[in-house]
């Protein structure tokens, strides 16, 4: 009798383990640092893309506007894909676009902007990638939406597509 109970308990235990592991298989095994709650934009200093002058984030994010921070590079292929959405967003009055040029060559980046149009009102240099890390970025391209209270309210990992573009429009309107 005792053995029977023991067998049932062991059976249940293995079944439980099986269910847990089986369900676990369905989860993606690559972790992405999603934004769980809105986060204050940390203060930073960076160099301007064209003039190479040091600028403080306080001066860049001074208007009572929404801001879109986009990390991009001329060597990044997905950045070309999302670029048309950025150009479209530039036409919206309620949002300003700030570009962070990630580990790029100045000439290539300048050519990229000339070829595809410059959607940014301000571009910052991130030669060694440290600025992106300070912002909590994961790679290129990556986009953050900052609200009027200077809080990061949305993070888009990877290129902007039609779906995320609509989401951004919804936020700023």
């Amino acid at each position, binding site marked *: 009798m005792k053995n029977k109970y023991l067998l049932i308990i062991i059976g249940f235990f293995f079944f439980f383990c099986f269910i847990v592991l089986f369900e676990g298989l369905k989860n993606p095994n690559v*972790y992405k640092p999603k934004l769980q709650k809105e986060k204050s934009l940390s203060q930073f200093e960076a160099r301007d893309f064209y003039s190479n002058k040091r600028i403080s984030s306080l001066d860049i994010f001074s208007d009572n506007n929404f801001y879109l921070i986009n990390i991009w590079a001329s060597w990044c292929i997905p950045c070309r894909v999302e670029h048309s959405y950025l150009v479209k967003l530039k036409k919206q009055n309620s949002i300003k676009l700030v570009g962070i040029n990630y580990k790029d060559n100045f000439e290539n980046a300048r050519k990229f902007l000339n070829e595809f149009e410059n959607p940014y009102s301000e571009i910052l240099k991130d030669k060694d990638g440290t600025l992106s890390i300070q*912002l*909590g970025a*994961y790679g290129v391209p990556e986009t953050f939406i900052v609200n009027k209270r200077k809080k990061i309210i949305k993070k888009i990992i990877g290129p902007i597509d039609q779906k995320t573009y609509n989401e951004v429009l919804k936020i700023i309107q």
Partner: protein
Amino acid sequence: MKLIKFLFIIFFYFSSSISFSNDKITILENKIFKNLRCLICQGQSVYDSQSEFAESMKLVVRQKLEEGLSEKEIYDFLKNQYGEWILYDPELNVKTYFLWFLPIILFILGGAIILRKLSVLKK
């Protein structure tokens, strides 16, 4: 001559102490790098990885150490940016009590079972 010898000793003493303090920083740096997970090549630490992300992360940690931040402050900063997953050592909190205490509970249970079996055998 004595003065030169004296200066030599002073010079070597200070140069060795400087390199010693540098070693100390490197040890701390490496300790932090080993506890940070590289998010690009997951499964590798920032110390092991040579991805762009890991290289930038190393620079940020170095900068923060130079600014005088402690190890815990650096972890807190990165946790705020990337979530707790960035750290290899899970912190002790409500979500991880089970993880931390399960081995101890299993150890005590195992010990109790062995003791019981032994006392049964003795009888």
